[in-house]
């Protein structure tokens, strides 16, 4: 089976990988040829809030996936770090999905050794870079300066991660790159990374295989802004996003697309929206709220594995993403294109139902007198105090809920679910579904939408003895997977 390597560059890269992780957790799968995803975040700002949140989510996903003994849908795809892939004790490789860049914890002038240059080189440097560039503190990234990034990120190929990435790459594997074009890290990192990947140099390990491998990429055009009130003497100014994008696209035109074989598929995503995010120059303050376009970007990765990994070196396929006219309203499933809807409607609803159940119905499940709570072949109540649940599953689900809430509050708002459900109305969580209680429900006898229906199905699944041989963590995930899928099919078909 093949592997898909995903390079997420900068904050946008982190956020798209986060969205992809939630999609994989919900049961969205890449093409059947791919059984393992290896996300790698390239960001010089190691303390970046988005980066840390994403790596935490990835770590939790991994732990849950490993312990769920290959559940069919929920957490059904393997995510690995480079270190795990090689199954070796590499001391110098990051074990948490971060593609470490050397020497970025200093000022740009120090990185380039300005003081050690002779006068001619200093003059050239001063021509290309401003005094602010020279003094720029790279511990928070390149703060919207791709000219700095294009120098610093050229150290890709000298990292331990790059060597091990090349070492682990096999024929059939594919690569996907995520970047934004209107900032610093992503805009400069993408062409450099692509150039390195397409380099066929016999001195570089596996470069012949990698240079021929399918590569796809998303480039994000501006989709958020920074409020002018943040103004003053700020290094990042959203009024320059468009001009930066145009300049970068112009560069891509001759640096990337001149060679029609450099990319198999290229996805453009962007939005004229009114969402503005608080100004942050990086570190833990850069924690942008999730946006629907990041979910669309994650879907682009799935689309790439399904449609563009087999094609032989032809011209790059260019793709854009669109929705039906929403007239300023929230996006719901009915405003998505049919392909997008088909891809996410069932799985995303399934993970949402799972999270809503844990939030609103778990207390009822714990006191239920059915076999689900059996100590021997069910899930004992002590399960909920163990690390697997408390530290991993519960927190992962909390991240997922936070992600959905952030997408709902953002512009454009993606809000396909009701957030005000209770245990009694749990299954009425999808907007625009004809979720009416029958006559028996109205008089309180058989409530079709109640979480009790799921509890009954959970008891039924345990009673079936199908999961008796599973260890409790895997049993929990698999039983829920089974029951949630059944209920989602009933709701949506």
């Amino acid at each position: 089976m093949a592997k898909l390597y995903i390079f997420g560059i900068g904050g946008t890269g982190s956020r798209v990988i986060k969205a992809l992780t939630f999609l994989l957790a919900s049961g969205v799968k890449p093409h059947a040829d791919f059984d393992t995803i290896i996300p790698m975040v390239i960001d010089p700002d190691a303390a970046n809030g988005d980066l840390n949140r994403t790596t935490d989510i990835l770590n939790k996903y991994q732990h849950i996936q490993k312990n769920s003994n290959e559940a069919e849908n929920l957490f059904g795809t393997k995510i690995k770090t480079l270190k795990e892939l090689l199954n070796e004790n590499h001391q110098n490789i990051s074990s948490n999905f971060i593609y470490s860049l050397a020497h970025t914890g200093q000022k740009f002038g120090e990185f380039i050794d300005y003081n050690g240059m002779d006068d001619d080189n200093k003059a050239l440097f001063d021509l290309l870079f401003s005094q602010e560039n020279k003094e720029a503190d790279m511990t928070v990234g390149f703060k919207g300066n791709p000219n700095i990034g294009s120098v610093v990120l050229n150290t890709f190929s000298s990292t331990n991660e790059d060597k091990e990435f090349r070492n682990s790459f096999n024929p059939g594997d594919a690569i996907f790159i995520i970047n934004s074009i209107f900032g610093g890290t992503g805009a400069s990192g993408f062409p450099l990374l692509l150039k390195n990947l397409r380099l066929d140099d016999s001195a570089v390990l596996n470069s012949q295989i990698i240079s021929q491998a399918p590569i796809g990429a998303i480039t994000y055009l501006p989709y958020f802004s920074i409020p002018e009130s943040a103004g003053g003497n700020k290094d990042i100014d959203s009024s320059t996003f468009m001009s930066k994008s145009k300049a970068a696209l112009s560069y891509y035109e001759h640096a990337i697309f001149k060679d029609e074989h450099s990319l198999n598929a290229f996805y453009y995503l962007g939005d004229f929206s009114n969402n503005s995010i608080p100004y942050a120059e990086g570190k833990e303050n850069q924690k942008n709220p999730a946006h629907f376009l990041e979910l669309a970007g994650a879907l682009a990765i799935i689309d790439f594995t399904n449609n563009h990994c087999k094609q032989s070196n032809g011209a790059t396929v260019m793709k854009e993403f669109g929705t039906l006219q929403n007239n300023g309203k929230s996006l719901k499933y009915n405003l998505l294109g049919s392909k997008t809807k088909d891809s996410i409607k069932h799985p995303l609803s399934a993970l949402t139902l799972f999270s809503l159940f844990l939030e609103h119905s778990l207390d009822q499940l714990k006191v239920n007198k059915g076999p689900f709570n059996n100590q021997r072949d069910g899930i004992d109540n002590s399960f909920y105090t163990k690390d697997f649940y408390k530290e991993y599953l519960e927190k992962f689900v909390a991240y997922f809920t936070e992600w959905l809430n952030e997408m709902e509050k953002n512009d454009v708002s993606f809000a396909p679910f009701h957030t005000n459900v209770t245990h009694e109305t749990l299954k009425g969580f999808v907007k625009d579904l004809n979720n009416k209680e029958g006559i028996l429900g109205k008089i309180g006898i058989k409530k079709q939408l109640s979480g009790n229906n799921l509890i009954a199905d959970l008891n039924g699944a345990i009673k079936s003895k199908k999961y008796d041989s599973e260890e409790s963590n895997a049993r929990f995930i698999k039983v829920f997977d089974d029951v949630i899928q059944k209920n989602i099919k009933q709701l949506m078909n």
Partner: protein
Amino acid sequence: MNDFFSLLYEFFFDYDTNQDFMTALFVNKDYLWLGIIILATTCLSLLVFYKIWDPVAKQTFSFLITILINIGLIFGIAYILITNNNEITEYLVNQDLPGIESFILKTAAVTALYGAVVFIIFILIPFPFKFISKNNRHNPF
């Protein structure tokens, strides 16, 4: 079997005082029918509770409701059965012996009590009723 079930009632009645009424039920094999009512109604109640209703919410409350309905049902059916005994009917009409009404009520009540006892015996063992349940295998314990 009529003998066996009649024995169960003798604990609760003074034979000398109720001899005529008890004989009337015994001769008509009504004790056998009372036993059948206890077993059949209790089994039916348990089947309805554990298999058909099998509630997910308010499970202990639902169980108590079921046991009360079982008691009520058995009391009612037993009352109807006893009052349909011709001899008992005659005693009721003629009023030639005192205490016929209280005998009927007490016999129906004892039958209902045995119904409750049988109900509890059935739920002390997991098979067959708790076994067939999906949601109440551990209800009430």
